[in-house]
């Protein structure tokens, strides 16, 4: 299948997809309520979409195309309220979080569609272990070349997005020590990681054709990159975020990405280069493992500081753009998080410390998601 043409979209528009956990209200383990929830939600009107995901303990909700933080928040709130109402009727819980803290992956069931069964055949236990929950943020781009430039520009900030959204410290009942253990599951896939360094759509098409000729991929869907172009929508899609525990944080993260994107497009503070990727995996690992305390190596200067400091500097740089985009509230949230509040992974650890019972932690996650 040839690479489809890059659709038109208004620059810097936003769209958010959130993968959610469906849990049993009895023991707070993952439960397979996707089909029931989708059936009830289908009777209601939603601003975006609700779709099944790989396993039937997961659903994905998406917003429509929005221009700013307020729009995203309104869409998410409306969908969230409807879904929570349906879930209450079924006595199941909905929760954010990049991983379910104690689910047993061998118990997961693949949602019954041909594509999901095909993927399950191909990846074996990885597909069930891939029961992880992410937030994807789409940013609209005026054209394909601009999309690729923005993609490689945003790569520098991947550690910010990881540390801010991290909400998956526990896997299979144990504290992994990571802030985002979810990404470790993603890295196991052969086509994960960074996109190839191509700054024009022609160059990118050549890469894509070469890859399809090898038979390794058929479509853009087969790439699990941290940021990938989505020609169908005319957007680039940031995929490294864990699903946060609240819709407010999900909206704030989308707005932060939008502000950084506006700053990069308007002021061009950096010239993207292949050498930026020398420190890429190091920085990303630091963010996954240590959150805001992780080390950030500046790809241009080679200077070391914490991810927290780098976010602080970035917040200062994008201040003007935040005002233009109506994202001051969102940036204030980000500032609070890197300050005293901490990310959701820290909240999950603190809650576990207090309660000593992972099902109770999940219950409180459900509460945070519902209000």
């Amino acid at each position, binding site marked *: 299948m040839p690479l489809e043409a890059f659709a038109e979209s208004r620059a810097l528009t936003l769209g958010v997809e959130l993968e959610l956990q469906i849990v049993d*209200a*009895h023991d707070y383990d993952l439960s397979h309520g996707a089909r*029931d929830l989708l059936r009830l939600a289908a009777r209601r009107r939603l601003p975006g979409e609700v779709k099944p995901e790989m396993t039937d303990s997961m659903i994905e909700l998406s917003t429509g195309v929005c221009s700013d933080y307020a729009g995203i928040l309104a869409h998410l709130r409306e969908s969230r309220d409807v879904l929570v109402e*349906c879930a*209450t009727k079924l006595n199941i819980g909905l929760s954010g979080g990049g991983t379910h803290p104690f689910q047993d992956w061998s118990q997961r069931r693949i949602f019954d569609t041909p594509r999901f069964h095909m993927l399950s055949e191909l990846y074996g236990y990885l597909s069930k272990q891939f029961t992880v929950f992410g937030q994807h943020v789409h940013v609209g781009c005026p054209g394909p070349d601009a999309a690729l430039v923005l993609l490689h520009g945003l790569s520098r900030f991947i550690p910010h997005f990881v540390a801010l959204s991290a909400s998956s410290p526990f896997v299979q009942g144990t504290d992994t020590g990571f802030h985002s253990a979810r990404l470790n599951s993603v890295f196991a896939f052969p086509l994960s990681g960074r996109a190839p360094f191509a700054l024009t759509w022609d160059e990118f098409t050549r890469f894509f054709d070469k890859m399809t000729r090898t038979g390794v991929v058929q479509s853009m869907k087969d790439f699990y990159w941290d940021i990938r172009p989505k020609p169908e929508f005319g957007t680039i899609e940031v995929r490294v975020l864990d699903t946060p525990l609240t819709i407010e944080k999900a909206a704030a993260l989308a707005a932060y990405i939008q502000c950084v994107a506006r700053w990069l497009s308007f002021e061009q503070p950096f010239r993207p280069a292949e050498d930026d990727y020398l420190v890429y995996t190091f920085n990303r690992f630091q963010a996954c493992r240590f959150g805001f305390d992780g080390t950030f190596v500046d790809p241009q200067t080679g200077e070391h500081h914490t991810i927290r400091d780098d976010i602080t500097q970035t917040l200062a740089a994008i201040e003007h753009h935040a005002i233009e985009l109506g994202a001051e509230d969102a940036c204030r949230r980000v500032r609070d998080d890197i300050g005293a509040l901490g990310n959701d992974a820290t909240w999950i650890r603190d809650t576990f410390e207090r309660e*000593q*019972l992972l099902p*109770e932690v999940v219950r409180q996650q459900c509460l945070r998601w519902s209000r």
Partner: protein
Amino acid sequence: MTGDNRSDLFFLPSWPPTPDVLLWVSLTIVLAGLLGEFVFRSLKLPRVVGYAAVGTAISAFGAGIGSAALAPGLRLIVDLGLSLLLFELGARINLRWLRANPWLLANSLVESVLSFAAVHLTLVWLGTESRVAAAVASILVATSPAVVMRVASEFNASGQVTERMIVLTGLNTFYAVLASKFVVGWLHAEFVGSWFRTIAHPLYLLAGSAVVAALLAWCVSLIARRLDLRNENSALLLLGMILLALSLTKMANLSTLLVPLLAGTMLRNSTERPWVWPRHFGTAGGALVLLLFVITGSVWSMDALMTGAALGMAAILSRLAAKILATAALGRPSGISMRQALALGVALMPISGAALVMMADLQAIYPAFAAQMTGIVFSAVAVLELLGPIAVQAALRYVNEDKLR
């Protein structure tokens, strides 16, 4: 000097050796364990079918309970096994769910009233005396909590049908306990003339059982605050608490069904914190549950079948139709598909230990009247003891809610 006039080989056992109760009990456990595993592995059926089959075989050799009252020793085992399962079941009844989804409560009420009416009408139509029919119908409102809990946990089932089956079973068991006491008391009042007794008995049961249940729930929550219930020792402690409450219940002449059921429900609804403990509270509880199924499997006798089999079958079928009708009618408004609603109706079919206990309670207070019911009730129990678990399993499989295959 008087010598020991016993033989030189006095230490040898007498021949033939005399078996004691221990031998029979242990043989039963071994046999039931083996047969349970056999039906699970080769026939892919729930293990409890194997346990019950051992009981059925015992009865076939004439060693069953027949229509006599349950012997105190056996009654104790039944009470113990059932109270564990009822407590587990109660702990899964989330009253907030009923408030959030009133259609589910409607489903429960309609399902119970329809079952009662269907069984009563069928039996009367087939020539049973109306009073007997009403008493039987009130007992048969209840779905077997033992079978439902056991099959659900054996297949690690979860989903809408599983959850609703558990909640509806808890509720209809609750109605049945009160209704059977009320109906029989009322019938009695027609003869003896004490209306006070008719009302007072179910009221005493409800209020008294609620008090003991609250006490148990409170103690368990105290323990749970300090200890991890998933740990084996705390699970044993929990088991001990339930048994202690059971002995209090018996001393106070309260319902051994209501106390654990209410205690579990109170615990679940007293706090939103999830409760997690090992299934049946570990191995000790597991052995009790096994014996429970063997005993309930052994209630039938040729005599009982002769008098009650046809009526029992008719009651089972009309009851099944009523339950399916109710769940099918209220499925969509309560949020499940037609397929799930049908499965739910079938899953509510089992009758077992709880019916036996309600029968035994009636036998104790109104022996002459109860004797007219045993044929029908015991036949129904005998049949559904084997078919009930299979029906639940089939229903859960039909909607893909059994995780172990």
